């Protein structure tokens, strides 16, 4: 599902020169596989997810997702790829405040030339336990409820790969547990590969496969 080879991501530094944030010789994830990628804050976890989602371009190297070489795709191609293949759960939920819960879920299938399936949106909202909150705005939902809506939205487009960026970091411990359960269960049910980045050992312990970013990222060794 995911195959990374010789991936390098550099950013321009304000004082000139370039900072290498990621230098990953090889990393892969099988179809339907679930992995936690643990790393410290500022270690490049979010950057890696953005690269896999096609939100950022790699400086060099190869990222293949579902047999598509992202580094060869145009920006429009990456947009289509993202809409069709990837689901994304953010640390800060990133729900659109102008839309109701059900509409936020529908937005997950609104782009990339697909048609919105209201039945699936309602079914997903029901699956995360918010069927009765369909018309609520994000500001009317609790933090945990917001993250559950975000999970439903990430699943709306039937992705093959779900990227989760510290999804439990901003919710209370009891909600964190249920959020994690929801993600893991949904990915299992729909055979979605899951890559969750986290700095939490407790969260990582829920996964059978746990990778450490420091171990796969050569740039980390150089920086430290």
């Amino acid at each position, binding site marked *: 599902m995911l195959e990374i080879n010789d991936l390098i991501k550099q950013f321009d530094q304000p004082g000139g020169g370039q900072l290498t944030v990621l230098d990953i010789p090889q990393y892969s994830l099988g179809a339907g596989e679930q992995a936690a990628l643990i790393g410290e804050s500022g270690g490049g976890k979010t950057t890696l997810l953005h690269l896999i989602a096609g939100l950022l371009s790699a400086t060099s190297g190869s990222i293949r997702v579902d047999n598509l070489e992202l580094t060869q795709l145009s920006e429009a191609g990456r*947009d289509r790829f993202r809409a*069709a293949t990837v689901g994304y759960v953010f640390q800060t939920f990133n729900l659109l405040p*102008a839309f109701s819960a059900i509409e936020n879920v529908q*937005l997950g299938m609104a782009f990339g030339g697909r048609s919105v399936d209201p039945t699936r949106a309602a079914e997903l909202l029901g699956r995360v336990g918010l069927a009765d909150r369909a018309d609520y705005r994000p500001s009317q939902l609790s933090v945990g409820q917001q993250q559950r809506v975000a999970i439903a939205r990430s699943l709306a487009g039937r992705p093959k790969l779900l990227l989760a960026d510290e999804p439990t970091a901003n919710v209370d411990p009891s909600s964190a547990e249920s959020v994690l359960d929801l993600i893991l269960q949904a990915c299992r049910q729909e055979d979605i590969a899951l890559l969750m980045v986290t700095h939490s050992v407790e969260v990582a312990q829920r996964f059978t496969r746990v990778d450490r970013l420091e171990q796969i990222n050569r740039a980390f060794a150089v920086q430290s």
Partner: protein
Amino acid sequence: MPLLFIAWRNFCYRALSSFLTTLSLTLGVALVVVVLSIYGIITEAFVRNASVGCNLVVGPKGSALQLTLNSVYYLSQPIENLPFTTYMEFFPAERRAAMVEKYGGDPALGERDGKYAAYVGGGFAIPLALGDYFGEYRVVGTTTDFFERLRHGPEVDQPFSFEAGRPFVEYHPEHEVFEAVLGSRVAATMGLSVGDTMNPTHGDPEGKGHGQGFHVVGIMDPTGTPNDRAVFVNLEGFYLLEGHAKPVDTEALIAPPERGNSPGEIPADIDLLTIPEREVTSILVQNRPRMFAVPLQNMINESVQAQAAAPVGEINKLMSMFVGPITKALLAITAITCFVAAVGVLVAIYNSMNDRRRDIAIMRALGARRDSVTVIILLESLIIAVLGGLIGWLLAHLAIYASGGYIEAQTGVQISLWSLSENEIYLLPLVLLLSLIAGLVPALSAYRTDVGTNLSA
């Protein structure tokens, strides 16, 4: 999910900002529509006022426009006067002889046809004598032909009707030759009604009052023409006012009048002015067939004393001279108002961009293309333009429609809710275009939004 729906949701979410921006555009559009409509009403009022039922105005040599303004619009000052004999030139020998017999004058005048008589054909020539005032309103000395022959209205086919009373008659046993008819506005503002007496002042509104009063016998219905603000008096009575008789050459040949005493005829014991003592300020001429108007106008203009002007032509010249530039100024105001409103749209949406960069980044993360988020911002701008444009247009028309009674009373122009003024149909497309252009700046900002930075923010 259609992009329009997303744009609409964003519009609704920023309710106060959206409302204020739309309101500003609404008021701008309403202002423009009102200005254009007022211009349209003024133009129509001018044009319909020029359609006074005559196709030529004859007066002394001078400015044709001034002649039209003072004889048709009762504005400006009369140029000079014409001898009564010029008026007689519009009649055949028989009528001329009757005039000599009635008023007294050179019998030779009645021995030939007037030189313009053949051109008048089945039409008419109505004399006007101006120079006196009643308050700020003009007093017009004329004959009963004014009410019997002249027509008004959009098709120039409506006879004058009376809110009260009747038109004056040439002679009334009680009022003799001193009867007056008031235009609707004169009656309303001067507070006169049928049965009252009005005293004209000589020369200007502040001038000395004539001792002789006229009995008000009729008040006209509103016509939407300058006749609403004039007082019409019997020409014979007008002539008899102090200072209105032209000094006569003592050697002039004047046969005394030979009036009988038949009913309705002016009795012989009333001393009417003789023909040499009479003058007219202008003559309203309607000729039949109308094809004779041009040769008649040329013939009169070739004469030594008189000129003939076509009121509609003169007013059109005036319109193109003054109203043309005003139109351009109004259109400039329109464009500036629309531009300012469009800048308001730009500022409002652009200011909201800081708040919504994150939203845009989220949509991009969900698979939205750059051009999709650009279109969403442009659609928001269009929503504001369509709502502001339509509500503003409707508001302006409702306001104009609500003022319809007042406008009709003042100008005679009837207003319907859907009366469109010239250039108005271009307004909405112009507003849409300007708003689209205004939306381009924030849309470009949306296009350039960096997803990574704004998602992490």
